């Protein structure tokens, strides 16, 4: 900059020189501007590949480690029935603050023969119930920091209540479908091919870990890696900066329930997490507000496609029955959601919102609710 100023002072004719000196900088700036988005996309692509790599590695390690964990899970946690599995999955999701790793763990337990397929199904259901607590938990922290109860907790409560009601109804349908064996014939042909391809890369890595650590600890290492993988995956998602835009205007409208249902399903198909899908709504709306009318079907749609990573985990395990369990989970939630949307949507909608309002109305109600969602999974585990 100083050099450029001196050139201006010493020779007026050097304007050309100034231009020529500026030009490379300007070009450089333009080039940087042009390259930056490309670099950002490249970085996101690499992050995605890294998260996928870690996900597959985690499943491989959890699968290895789960075999050695059988006695511990069976005897120490006494997971003998579907109710125990439901409670275990629910509490496990509280502990790791995420549902997907627990769902993957349920499949590896099933693959290792620790739990049966009804148990795996119930544990996956429990994992979603536990995961839906996350948004509520975040809201609760805001309440403790002095924020308004209703504003901070409504979305979390709504998410939890919608998930709870649809999944518990789906549990009954799912158990029926699993016992009937109607879906056992639906199997993808790619599982074995995918598995043999990933075995080539990941088995040596698992062998390496086995040479250093006891077998049971591989499950915990895998659990840590899968959590990291999901965190990395969240960073791949584009940051929304659409305030005051057309999308902001669109967020003020009331959409047909089916539209929001499909939107929730589509967004979660990409984000793979209900809590991430819900958090995407914040920047999409002008002031971080969403219409009450739009939220419930969005959550219902999101609750179905959130299983996409669990479906991938089942494929990686190359266990046809594990694949059926996840498929039944998705189908049963879809059946319940379609039933609600088609036949009882308005009363269901009002019931959910009334429940949220009554929970946040008083501290006593909120405390009772929090106590219930902590005690119920414990009771299920101890049954």
């Amino acid at each position: 900059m100083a050099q450029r100023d001196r050139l201006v002072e010493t020779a007026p004719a050097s304007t050309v020189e100034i231009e020529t000196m500026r030009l490379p900088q300007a070009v450089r700036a333009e080039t940087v501007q042009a390259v930056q988005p490309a670099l950002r996309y490249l970085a996101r692509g690499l992050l995605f590949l890294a998260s996928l790599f870690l996900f597959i590695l985690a499943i491989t390690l959890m699968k290895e480690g789960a075999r050695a964990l059988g006695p511990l899970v069976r005897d120490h946690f006494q997971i003998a029935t579907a109710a125990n599995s439901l409670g275990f999955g629910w509490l496990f999701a509280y502990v790791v603050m995420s549902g997907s790793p627990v769902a993957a763990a349920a499949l590896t337990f099933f693959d290792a023969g620790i739990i049966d397929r009804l148990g795996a199904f119930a544990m996956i259901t429990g994992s979603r119930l536990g995961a839906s607590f996350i948004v509520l938990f975040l809201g609760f922290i805001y309440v403790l920091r002095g924020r308004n109860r209703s504003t901070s907790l409504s979305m979390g409560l709504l998410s939890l209540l919608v998930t709870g009601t649809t999944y518990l109804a789906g549990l009954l349908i799912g158990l029926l479908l699993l016992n009937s064996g109607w879906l056992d014939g639906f199997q993808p042909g790619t599982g074995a091919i995918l598995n043999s391809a990933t075995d080539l890369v990941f088995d040596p890595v698992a062998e390496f870990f086995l040479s250093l650590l006891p077998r049971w600890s591989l499950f915990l290492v895998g659990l840590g890696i899968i959590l990291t993988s999901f965190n990395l995956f969240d960073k791949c998602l584009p940051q929304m900066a659409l305030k005051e835009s057309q999308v902001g205007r669109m967020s003020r409208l009331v959409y047909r329930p089916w539209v929001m249902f499909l939107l929730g399903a589509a967004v979660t198909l990409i984000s793979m997490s209900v809590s991430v899908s819900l958090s995407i709504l914040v920047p999409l709306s002008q002031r971080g507000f969403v219409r009450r009318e739009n939220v419930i079907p969005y959550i219902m749609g999101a609750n179905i496609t959130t299983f996409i990573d669990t479906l991938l985990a089942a494929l990686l395990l190359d266990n046809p029955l594990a694949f059926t369990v996840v498929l039944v989970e998705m189908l049963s939630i879809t059946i319940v959601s379609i039933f609600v949307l088609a036949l009882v949507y308005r009363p269901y909608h009002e019931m959910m919102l009334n429940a949220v309002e009554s929970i946040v109305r008083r501290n006593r109600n909120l405390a009772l609710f929090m106590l219930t969602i902590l005690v119920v999974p414990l009771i299920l585990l101890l049954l």
Partner: protein
Amino acid sequence: MRILIATGGDDHTDTALQLGGLLAEMIDAPVTLLTVIGSEREWVQAEAILTRAQTLLPAAVAVKTKIRVGQRARQIVLEVAQLEKAGRQILLVLGERSHRGLSKRLLAPTVERVLQQMPCPVLIARGRVQPPKHLLVCESGREPSLLHRLLHRFKPLLLAADVLTVLHVMSQMAAGPGVPGWELRADAQALMEEQTPEGQLLEADLAQLRQLSAHLEAKVRHGLVVREILAEARSGDYDLIVIGAHQATQWERFLLDDLAQEIVDHADRSVLVV
């Protein structure tokens, strides 16, 4: 303005006749009485219906009668189009038979079919028949504002009212835990003082209404739009609920929910859809 009242000789269309007649007298508008029949063979009955209908209207109101043959909703819409072609603004007044549950889903009543096409402002007459002195104007915030449309088309109706309540329902909730949202609990006064978008909307409405002699009030309710409008309507002594039409165009028709139809379906008193 001309008031078009569709009648079939039933009790519910009698309500439409009485309310339409009252309005015609209030705003000094001529009336066209329309009845639609399925075939020419019903012509005599149609004439009888129209003769009886005229007796339910105030004597001072100028009346024309019309009989159309065909599908009811379609013929009503065609009649509106024909009258509008003659350069008159039309207010269509319909009565509604109570339809609930499966029969409503399967049959799609005339009112619903007409509202789907929304050829002009439609008044659905229901409940007590009395001059609309207390109006509940439900402002959605979409442009142009409902009040702007009302003033443009129904100024005489507003001039004749004693009390005008402008209601805006905020159905928003915080999309996430960290969103600050005092507006989600605020009343109309606070929103206007803080100049939030909702407050500005209400303030603009009140400013437009100040030219009228009616007593004005602005209200904000928080909750589901349909539920809150119906709750407000039941909580006050309102004679008429005024709502905006479902203004969906092309793709919006498939994506957006028709809240106007829901309000019409569930309101216990007359509704004007503008």
